[in-house]
């Protein structure tokens, strides 16, 4: 497009209209910020929830309206300017202030005097031939989920590439429809990156029990097709799994392009401190796009992909934009619903050196507590909300639960919480 319009209003520009971008805008208004706030998102939809895309929405239990995080009039009431279909392509900073000018791909210029990056992440692409065949799907946004929802009824054999949460959730939905489902995972266990072996083993058994096949240590070398549509998944040992629908869930890449153009320090994500400030302290960033200090082990940098992190970091980012005190950080937590299994995770288990299994995995109700240097750092609770809540509370207080008693299901976990 060659028309260039120039906005005269300044205020804060938030790039990215997801959970984090919306969270920053709401937190600014809640803190009494009265200048203009513009949220720009490159998607067509206003801010919405992603978690149901691989769960209730995919299963047809929710519609698109249910996904939206706010009603239209909320944005008017809070005087938030929401621009959808607005891809910020470039940002030029002023030399003498914290402000600058952003340009959308349509050539629209937006001036700002405060900038927040909440650009999220995009799904990692499977680098094999055949990735562009019909019937090969990723699952990150509403158009992806809509497409998958329309393909599922006509599918018979589904191969899910990647045994992480999103892949397993989608596998459970497909299997729930009675389809033939195979999960292919490169590592020798499911959820390898995020959970202890007993949790991996539990989910393998649980999915197999419900009729899915799980192939571990198997890597995909090509997607085969006929007449433009996917027909099979070829593995490194030469085996070909017949498939008419392939769902790929092999992780995400934080979107750091704009931050790099702005010269901000980036690792895997945009590097921020515990106040959500980037290497240019006038610019904040929040959500999936960031890489931040571990809350308990600050010399370690981590990328978190969760709603809770996006929402919490957004509040911190808004406080930093207003030069206010940093709000107390909440305990990281996460959930995953697969068929009738509810997994709730409190804390961050990465770096654990010990774990305790509480309860019998075979009953599909148990908890794994994770320890590092003898200190409780996280728990994965399977169909066990009391344990989840107890660990979340212990972590919020900076307390621990003695590993020698933790396995005893006769003792409620909340009675075992001890100060460190």
């Amino acid at each position: 497009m060659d028309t260039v319009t120039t906005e005269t209003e300044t205020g804060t520009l938030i790039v990215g209209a997801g959970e984090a971008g919306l969270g920053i805008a709401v937190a600014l208004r809640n803190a009494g910020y009265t200048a203009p706030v513009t949220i720009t998102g490159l998607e067509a939809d206003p801010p919405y929830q992603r978690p149901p895309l691989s769960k209730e929405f995919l299963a047809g239990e929710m519609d698109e309206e249910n996904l939206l995080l706010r009603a239209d009039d909320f944005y008017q009431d809070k005087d938030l300017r929401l621009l959808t279909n607005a891809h910020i392509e470039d940002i030029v900073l002023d030399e003498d202030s914290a402000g600058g000018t952003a340009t959308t791909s349509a050539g629209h210029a937006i001036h700002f005097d405060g900038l927040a990056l909440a650009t999220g992440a995009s799904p990692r692409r499977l680098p094999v031939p055949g990735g562009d065949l019909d019937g090969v799907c990723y699952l990150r946004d509403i158009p992806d989920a809509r497409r998958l929802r329309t393909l599922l009824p006509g599918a018979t054999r589904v191969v899910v590439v990647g045994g992480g949460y999103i892949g397993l959730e989608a596998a459970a939905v497909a299997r729930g429809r009675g389809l033939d489902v195979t999960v292919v995972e490169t590592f020798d266990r499911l959820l390898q990156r995020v959970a202890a072996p007993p949790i991996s083993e539990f989910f393998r058994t649980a999915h197999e029990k419900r009729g899915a096949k799980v192939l571990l240590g198997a890597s995909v070398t090509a997607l085969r097709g006929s007449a433009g549509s996917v027909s099979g998944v070829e593995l490194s040992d030469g085996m070909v799994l017949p498939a008419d629908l392939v769902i790929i869930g092999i992780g995400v890449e934080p979107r750091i392009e704009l931050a790099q153009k702005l010269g901000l320090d980036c690792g895997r994500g945009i590097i921020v401190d515990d106040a959500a400030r980037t290497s240019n302290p006038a610019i904040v960033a929040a959500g999936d796009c960031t890489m931040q200090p571990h809350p308990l082990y600050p010399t370690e940098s981590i990328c978190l992909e969760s709603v809770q992190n996006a929402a919490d970091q957004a509040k911190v980012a808004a406080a930093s934009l207003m030069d206010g005190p940093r709000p107390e950080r909440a305990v990281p937590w996460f959930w995953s619903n697969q068929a009738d299994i509810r997994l709730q995770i409190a804390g961050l288990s990465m770096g654990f050196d010990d774990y305790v299994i509480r309860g019998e995995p075979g009953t599909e109700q148990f908890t794994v507590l994770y320890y590092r240097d003898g200190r409780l750092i996280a728990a994965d609770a399977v169909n066990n909300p009391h344990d989840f809540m107890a660990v979340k509370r212990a972590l919020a207080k900076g307390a621990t639960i003695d590993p020698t008693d933790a396995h005893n299901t006769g003792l409620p976990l909340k009675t075992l919480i001890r100060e460190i």
Partner: protein
Amino acid sequence: MPKIILRSPDGNTHTVDARVGASVMETAVKHGVPGIVAECGGALSCATCHVYVSDSCLERAGAAEDFEDEMLDDATSERRPNSRLSCQIRMSDELDGLEVEIAPEQ
């Protein structure tokens, strides 16, 4: 559209129109009614959408299922016989005029 009447911890009463099939939590959050946090967005995982259903509506709203019941045991605000997680109450025409009080702490 069925209406929901919510009393916020700040003492204000909000009357909002609900879409049939939307939960009480979803309706309140979308319209910016203060007090409900709903960290998990309705996945029955966070217990930060705790409400007290007014006695006159209790029967119509129904009872909590097992998982919700266990989550409510550990909710931040006191659990009462009329406690519910508002993401688990789906609006229907029969629930028109539902009155709930949002729990003070989530």
